């Protein structure tokens, strides 16, 4: 059996309904975790995924959720394949995904080219991250490590609220 284009499209649609367990407002497709969908001559589906952070504990849940969703939509014998290159980056997150993230209350990741060139900078450049609640730019980084591997802790001086930032990586 040769993969009909509508089959692959419907598999992508199924995958786009699988939410990330840590950031449920985004799907595993929007986050860039799903890298490829393929179907072999026997009609068996292989989904290639890539981990976000090396130690992301959500990965096992994501694997299970993807296989469950595919089974529900009729692809019971689907397989997952882990790919490591190219390494996952927040630059793969599209404008739509960024808007959803902001609406959910998490500031979206800055572009990676704003990374400090120095490994240990003498003085950190002030991050221009607008507060997802009030839009103010009077915000400060509290810690580059937050509630999950992918988030940093910020603070808004305007509305006096701590908020999370999806880290650029």
């Amino acid at each position, binding site marked *: 059996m040769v993969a009909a284009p509508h089959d692959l499209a419907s598999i992508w649609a199924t995958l786009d309904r699988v939410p990330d367990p840590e950031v449920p407002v985004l799907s595993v497709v929007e986050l860039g975790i799903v890298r490829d969908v393929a179907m072999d001559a026997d009609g068996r589906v292989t989904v290639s*995924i890539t*981990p976000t*952070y*090396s*130690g*992301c*504990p959500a990965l*096992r849940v994501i*694997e299970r959720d993807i*296989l469950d969703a595919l089974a529900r939509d009729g692809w019971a014998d689907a*397989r*997952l*394949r*882990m*790919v*490591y*290159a*190219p*390494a*996952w*980056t927040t630059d793969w997150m599209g404008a739509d995904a960024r808007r959803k993230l902001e609406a959910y209350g998490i500031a979206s990741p800055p572009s990676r080219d704003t*990374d*400090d060139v120095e*490994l*240990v*900078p*003498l003085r950190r450049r002030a991050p221009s991250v607008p507060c997802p609640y009030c839009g103010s730019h009077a915000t400060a980084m*509290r*810690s*580059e*490590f*937050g*509630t999950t*591997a992918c988030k940093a*802790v910020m603070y808004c001086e305007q509305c006096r609220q701590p908020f999370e930032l999806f*880290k650029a*990586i």
Partner: protein
Amino acid sequence: MPRSTTSPVGRPVAPPAIAANTRPALAQYLLRLGDDRLVLGHRLSEWCGHAPILEEDIALANIALDLVGQAALLLDLAGATEGAARDGDALAYLREAIDFRNVLLVELPKGDFAFTIVRQFLFSVAAYYQLEGLAASAHPDLAGIAAKAVKETRYHVRHAGEWVIKLGDGTQESHGRAQSALDALWRYTGEMFLADDVDAALVGTGLVPDLGTIEPQWRAQVTDVIERATLTIPPAGYMQRGGRIGRHTEHLGIMLAEMQILQRSYPGAKW
């Protein structure tokens, strides 16, 4: 690593292009990379619930998670390369201390906060440059794992580096503790750059970078931060070694007893 051995995900497999006589050296090299991260990750996790402030508790736990995650990927790859039907879990939980290949630096007890931070800085800078080299490896899976790990390590270097400066250039108390830590740890840094027959078998294959090129980069970055921290690099002297060939301090066995007890007491337990 709470992982099912029946996971439907294809684990990394050593590509057949690796020459048979290079394979044992590559497996050893991957064990070294994986063990450094597993042991240091466990040491960092000992701070969970004990760090001086909440942000640091969370930061150290996050860095521990990155390191244990990197270890899981590298040890899985080591197992596949070795070809002896041992996966990452078996390598992590079912080996004796004498079979671990981490440098002595990472197994030393966590000490005070200054000791943990200075060690983290000395290790992370070396790891950063080594991973940068590995990201260009001719081994596709190793290159991919390293390309991800190097980005995580950049955060680790910045975190520890900023703290070294804060502690060193801080109060008399924090300066004294940071200097004591540096004095105690310095003699353990040489082992990170000690090339032996494992490295000799791999350099020139395009699989791994030359440790000789990593050391000067490490020294330049470390010196820069130590000077900014108003700390003093200890005089050159004898460097401790042994971890890479399984000769460890007594601290590793005690740590492994705690880390491995569940799998040793209830073989094959899953959760």
